[in-house]
């Protein structure tokens, strides 16, 4: 049958043709449609905004403090890290009798908020199609937008955490944010694309295999400990040697994490006699953006090529 689009009659505002034969996408043929994604996002910004509101309000509806919880969590986290890792483990100090170095606590804290926003966003993105099964089945709308609001919420939570981090860091003199702070939106956008790509990938897998979200939970924890969130690279260097370089070079989260830390104003410091450096922002950003685009193409291609099955499976 012809799948050639025919001229639209004058009354038609849109023509939707679907041919099961031509629509049978392979993964490779699904690579290019991602180019329409920004346009789709723009056209349906009102939908994304509504989903965002729904998810956000739905999460806090009925709780007395409401959205203030978004602020309470990072403050609480920071206090815990400062006390436990600073005092108990004596982290980052030669002399345990000295008060803990706030720079160490901020190092942990910035790492945790970045990584949490990543894994939290991905965890929710993973189940977003299945959770909205009723919509996917009954309403015709672009389901590839579903991960966007949950990722945006995770990023909003991150930004609140980042603000806490900055306020504490600047007042304690541990952070010296400079012009690099202006690159924060850029880093956030890169992280958005990064999370969106992986989120689309996980969401499509979850439709076919519901164990994906459980596996992802385990994987996310492992990933967090393989990334220098809680440790300094030099601490592993002694045991891993050159293996550490490979580990960090192939860890997509590493450049992203370091870029975030630099933007928030972390400066090189020394722990004992070891130097803790953060590298160059531009280089990290470039790496992170590379990973982000790779994930976006892969994730979107998978989602797009399998999408026609979703409504029958959720």
């Amino acid at each position: 049958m012809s799948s050639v689009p025919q001229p639209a009659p004058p009354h038609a505002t849109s023509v939707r043709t679907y041919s099961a034969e031509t629509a049978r996408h392979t993964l490779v043929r699904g690579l290019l449609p991602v180019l329409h994604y920004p346009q789709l996002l723009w056209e349906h910004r009102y939908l994304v905004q509504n989903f965002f509101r729904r998810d956000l309000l739905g999460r806090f509806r009925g709780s007395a403090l409401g959205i203030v919880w978004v602020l309470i969590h990072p403050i609480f986290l920071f206090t815990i890290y400062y006390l436990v890792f600073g005092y108990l483990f004596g982290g980052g100090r030669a002399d345990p009798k000295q008060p803990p170095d706030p720079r160490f606590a901020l190092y942990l804290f910035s790492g945790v908020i970045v990584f949490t926003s990543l894994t939290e966003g991905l965890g929710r993105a993973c189940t977003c199609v299945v959770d909205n099964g009723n919509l996917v089945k009954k309403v015709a709308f672009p389901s590839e937008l579903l991960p966007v609001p949950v990722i945006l919420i995770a990023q909003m939570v991150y930004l609140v955490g980042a603000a806490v981090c900055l306020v504490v860091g600047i007042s304690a003199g541990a952070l010296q944010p400079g012009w690099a702070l202006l690159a924060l939106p850029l880093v956030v956008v890169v992280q958005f694309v990064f999370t969106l790509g992986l989120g689309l990938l996980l969401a499509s897998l979850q439709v076919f295999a519901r164990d994906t979200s459980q596996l992802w939970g385990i994987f996310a924890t492992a990933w967090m400990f393989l990334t220098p969130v809680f440790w300094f690279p030099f601490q592993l260097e002694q045991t891993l040697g050159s293996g550490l370089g490979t580990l960090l070079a192939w860890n997509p989260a590493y450049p992203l994490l370091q870029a975030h830390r630099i933007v928030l104003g972390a400066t090189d410091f020394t722990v004992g006699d070891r130097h803790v450096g953060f590298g160059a922002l531009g280089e990290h950003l470039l790496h992170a953006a590379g990973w982000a685009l790779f994930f976006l193409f892969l994730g979107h291609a998978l989602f797009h090529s399998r999408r026609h099955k979703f409504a029958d499976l959720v």
Partner: protein
Amino acid sequence: MSGAPAIEVRNLSKVYRLYGSPYDRLLERLPWVKTPRHRQVTALRDLDFAIEPGQCVGVVGKNGAGKSTLLKILTGTTFPSSGTYTVRGRVASLLELGAGFHLDFTGRENIYMNAAMMGFSRQEAHRKLDEILAFSELGDFIDAPLRTYSSGMAARLGFSVAVAQDPDVLIIDEVLAVGDQAFQRKCVDRIYDFKHRGKTMFFCSHSLYDVRQICETCIWLRDGRVQMLGDAVMVTNEYATWESERRPRADEVAFEKMPAAGSFDPRHPPAGDDYPVITSAQLVDPATGAPRAAFAPGDDVAVRVHVRNGSRREPLAVAVGVMRNEGTICFAHSSQHDGVVCDQAEFTITLHLKRLRLLSGEFVVPVWLLDAAGLHRFHERPVEQNLVVQNRTLDLGLFLQEHQWQIEVSAAKAAR
């Protein structure tokens, strides 16, 4: 209207693969797994049709015939396994009332959410809000969470949002029976208005009455195939006959069955003066005017119906049918088709049946009270006594066909 059809379906099939476990789907992909691990269920087979713009198409068929699958495919939520379809124009569909509603949110928030999902921009959504609010008649409830709504209220909200889109193609699945009587009226009016503006409609219903009244064209789906496609009256009659042969239970057999989900049942209209009702309906002897139930073929029969109009005094029509016990309609006449409506507060309307053609049997005679367009049924009841026809001849069957016999002797053989 010139130009391409609004809906075009070519060789469309939909096969569902049922797997015992989701992992069977993955296992099946493995190169060394040769035996299929799924069961195939064909929902639609090789559908082929085109609908011109401005047509209103009914879809009938028993449960599992593929009606909902077809509607879902045309809506764009699910996709065919093979074949092609084209839909021209903006589509709105109401597959399930309240699909996409969130119970924790208020009616207003849900309107915005739903509008966004239908592809509205913020400005469009705000522009439409008043219209939706007015149409749904929810009043102050619009700012209460949806979980406090009755099912009728939620249904009203859903319908209001769907029709507010003013689509070129409207797809409706079994949702006309929503809300109270007045709201049903509005829905039907809206659909009629829609039809008059030359929009295309796809309408799936178990109520053959609704299909006949609203649609010109009807598709009868049977086991995923188009059993029949054509004039709505013809197709629904064929379908009703087939249904009644399949399931010989009286009353509920395909015959003007009421939509079940509605809170309003024309057999039990609300009390009070607001609604028009049939106060009495009886068979009478047209000569004497006295009630009479037994007739013979060739007799004149009259059905006398007494009606009390509602406080709104709207024009009313009356329909009378004669049906056999097992559900076959022998005939049915609707006064508005003959140009007879009446808006008086109280009146008696009599249907004269000249020279009854029916043969022996007992017949149920249902009477309906309708609006002037025949779309809405206010009240439905049978006449007090069943019509009993006693045959004086030995003819068999349902009715007396005028007939005569003629013999022509074949000349060649006669010579022998």
